[in-house]
């Protein structure tokens, strides 16, 4: 088992009232799964993804990731954990505008303290795998949206994570580009990477092996 959420609650207090963002979420994810989270706006999809990604805290419940109790960990250890095992893909790519494709790919490796030569080899591998060798010296602004997302996924993958978390990865793309990205995810999943994605589109959700529906912070 990769991760397990038990009775997760998350809320904010607004005007004396407690508004639940996540309510009693129970979820087990096995390695090799491809899960799609669906639901209307404000149903808590992104919040759930952020909790799984350890970017956001929760107020109640237990979260175990590879036999570590995330709720008991300090921030630094949590950071080490997700740095090691989780890659993020965002709707708006979040590439660093000041860095070239190659440098963007290299950045996670820097924080993992890989040596310069190793980094070069890994980046070259990744560029090769995604067929973007020719674009390595371009800046994000010089790429199309689809290409930027490709780089974003390559960056998420470069440190060999066990889990990819994707928040509407195709939301800013046209349908053809979106389809290509989803095909890529499917292929990665077949290669053994666990993927959890948030999506609005039924069609994209179909790529997953399991669909979780959220409404008002609850799983339905």
């Amino acid at each position, binding site marked *: 088992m990769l991760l397990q959420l038990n009775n997760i609650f998350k809320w904010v207090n607004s005007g004396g009232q407690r508004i639940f963002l996540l309510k009693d979420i129970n979820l087990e994810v096995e390695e090799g799964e491809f899960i799609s989270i669906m639901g209307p706006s404000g149903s808590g999809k992104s919040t759930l993804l952020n909790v799984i990604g350890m*970017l956001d805290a929760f107020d109640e419940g237990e979260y175990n990731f590879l036999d570590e109790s995330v709720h008991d960990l300090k921030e630094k250890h949590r950071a*080490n954990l997700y740095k090691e095992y989780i890659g993020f893909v965002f709707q708006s790519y979040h590439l*660093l505008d000041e860095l070239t494709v190659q440098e963007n790919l290299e950045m*996670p490796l820097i924080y993992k303290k890989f040596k310069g030569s190793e980094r070069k080899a890994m980046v070259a591998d990744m560029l090769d795998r995604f067929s973007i060798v020719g674009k390595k010296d371009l800046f994000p602004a010089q790429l199309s949206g689809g290409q930027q997302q490709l780089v974003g996924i390559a960056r998420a993958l470069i440190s060999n994570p066990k889990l990819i978390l994707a928040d509407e990865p195709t939301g800013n793309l046209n349908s053809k580009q979106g389809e290509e990205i989803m095909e890529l995810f499917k292929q990665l999943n077949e290669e053994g990477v666990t993927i959890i994605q948030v999506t609005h589109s039924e069609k994209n959700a179909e790529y997953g092996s399991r669909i979780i529906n959220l409404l008002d912070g609850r799983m339905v």
Partner: protein
Amino acid sequence: MLKNYLKIAWRNLLKNKIFTLANIVGLTCAFAVAILLTMTALFELSYDQFHENKDSAYQLYLSNQTPRGPEISVSNPVPLAPALKEEVAGIKHIARSVSEDVLITYNSKELSLDAEYVDPSFFDIFTYPTLMGNSKNPLPNNNSVGITEKGAKKIFGTTDNVIGKTVSLKIGREEQPFTIASVLKDAPSNSSVDFEIVVPFETHPEYLSSKDRWDSQFHPIYLQLEKEVTVAQFEKNTIPFTALHYKGGIESDIRDGAVPDADGRYKQFHLMPITDRHFASYTTGAAKVDRVFPLMILGIAFVIIFIVSANFINMNIALGEKRLKEIGMRKTLGAIKKQLFFQFWLESLFVFALSLLMGMVISNLLLNPFKTLFNTKASFADVIQPGVVILFGLAIFIVTLIAGGYPALLMSKLGTLRALKGKMEVGKNRLRNSLIVLQFAIAILLITGTLVLHGQIEFMRNKDLGYNKEQVISIPLNGKKNGYSVVELLRDELKNNPDVLSVSGADNNLGKGRDGSLSSSMMGFDYKGRGVVTNALTVDFDYAKTLDLQLVAGRMFNRDFATDSLSLVINESMAKQLGEEDPLSITIPMDDNVTYSVIGVVKDYNFQDISRKIQPLTLFMNKDWDLYYAYVKVAPKNIAKSFDAIKDAWEKVEPQAEFLGSFLDENVDRTFKREKTMATIITSGSILGILLSCIGLFAISMLVVAQRTKEIGVRKVVGASVSSVALLLTKDFLKLVGIAFVIATPIAWYFLNEWLQNYASHVSLSPLFFIGAGLLATFIAFVTVGTRTVKAASANPVKSLRTE
């Protein structure tokens, strides 16, 4: 990793060109100016620090409780120093010293040198090393002189083989031969005593006549205490000495109603540490050591660095908002706080290092113009010592740590999700606003200072001094001939020139002439059982006519009266001091049973420094005494031509001596050189301060406008006019200037009021100065911010809303 950081830093700097430029230009200017100012201040503070015995060397001064209140005297009678050494314990060395110009002749070359008449132990107390000749005692006997390199070059053109040469010096009215016994190194520029030639004290023209006189005081005394003796011990040791040797003076002071000091004494010797000497003033009747000027310069340097640092912090925090995405992204990729802090701090460090480097280059390039403008002799060589460099480095490091580190800390602390969503914590504007308020408070403070300082200078310049300073030229009589005869010869030479209205002379100058000498001559006598003190001035005929002095009663000296050498003219203050109903009836018996009678009273005029009150003055006319300055009054037209004619006449009368004539208004201006230097420094400080504050304000207004684009759009869509939106945006900034004004004004008032107390007559501290400064700051802020806000307010709202 470092490489990656630097790369990101570099690209970020390039991306935000305007801000980078603003920061680097600001920091560079600030560093350059701060370096120069710090150098000047450190130079000032280093005065007399080079003496090896600086911890045990002192200048002697006597505090007197007189009927007019406490007074301090640094002029001493000739027998005092030997007597002290003889009778008071604790003195290791003691030396008398007089600074005077001396006329030196070598082969037919004749020129005036800056001389120091000193006792031989002067060189035991102070560190003025010799280059050649006897290093233990540069003045082995009373026929020898020591010359500095500068002096040797002036008279011989070289410092080689000058030892043993014979020169003649004009001592009093006679020329005497002296042998050069040693060549000294030039006194360092941070020495408060400067000289070109040292002459044995006992050859001073006044020495013989004053050798045993305790009532003739004209020279300072320096001494070095024995190692184990403290100042307090020494001062205590002098009490019986003072009681014995100053008995007569103390008795007459008591008779005239002097009030003793807290210890019940009327006269007490004190010691001023030699390192405080440059900063000491005695005008208020107490010794005051005042390092305000160098500290003020340091303060301005600090303030300028503060202003740019505040800019840097403000801009970096505001710019950080643009980089939130990067921060968030780096965090999701595993960056920890420390790494982010280090990255951002490194970027700041980079900017600081670059600016510091450029600042150093610029300060080096500006060194010479700076020295002229600010009238300082400071140089890097004087200031650069290991300690100072380390301290300066440390200061820069701390500034970088705070100014660069604070935004870095703030940004590295942000939560990952918050950062990714691009939201910075609210409430951070408080810091920004306080920094802006402080910047403007400083700017207003400096502007007020500038206005008041210039006001005071103008006041002093335009003040009616009681004499005609625009049309009168004073000429130092630096030749060999007797003063009265030179004036007479000049009168003769110029009598056919219709533009020369009148010629006279005196033994003292008005203002500070090109010979740079300032002196005063005082005398005291008993009048009807009371002690009276007056300034004394010897003049020639036509003195009042030449200077346009006004006569209140009686007449001036006149050629038609043979007895005028026994006549006196006094000023109103003197008449008041004597207290007679009819001043013209006064007769004064002075020494040698000669009785003088008052023949006229002149209206008070500022014969001394303008900062002082007009004191009692008595004019003498005695052809047996000497005159040192000639005065020539010219007609208001053809002034330049008349000046040349006077110069020509001078060259005929004194062909060997240099012509140093100058108009009295220049002389008066020269007396407030210090104020002018101060004004230049404060003015440039405030201009720079304002400029730098504006750079910061401009950048901040740009960012604020960018942040509020959506708000502006919405407001316009619901019907706000351009002017109302512009006003809304500008108002926030002007409010800050208003707060700054409220903070700065009382502080400015307090300090300026304190400062103006130093002047007997000064401008009144009118509210207009403060209002003017406030309005100026407001106007500058308005222009700076207004350009941005008006532009933002007139933009098409559809466009600004679309960017969301």
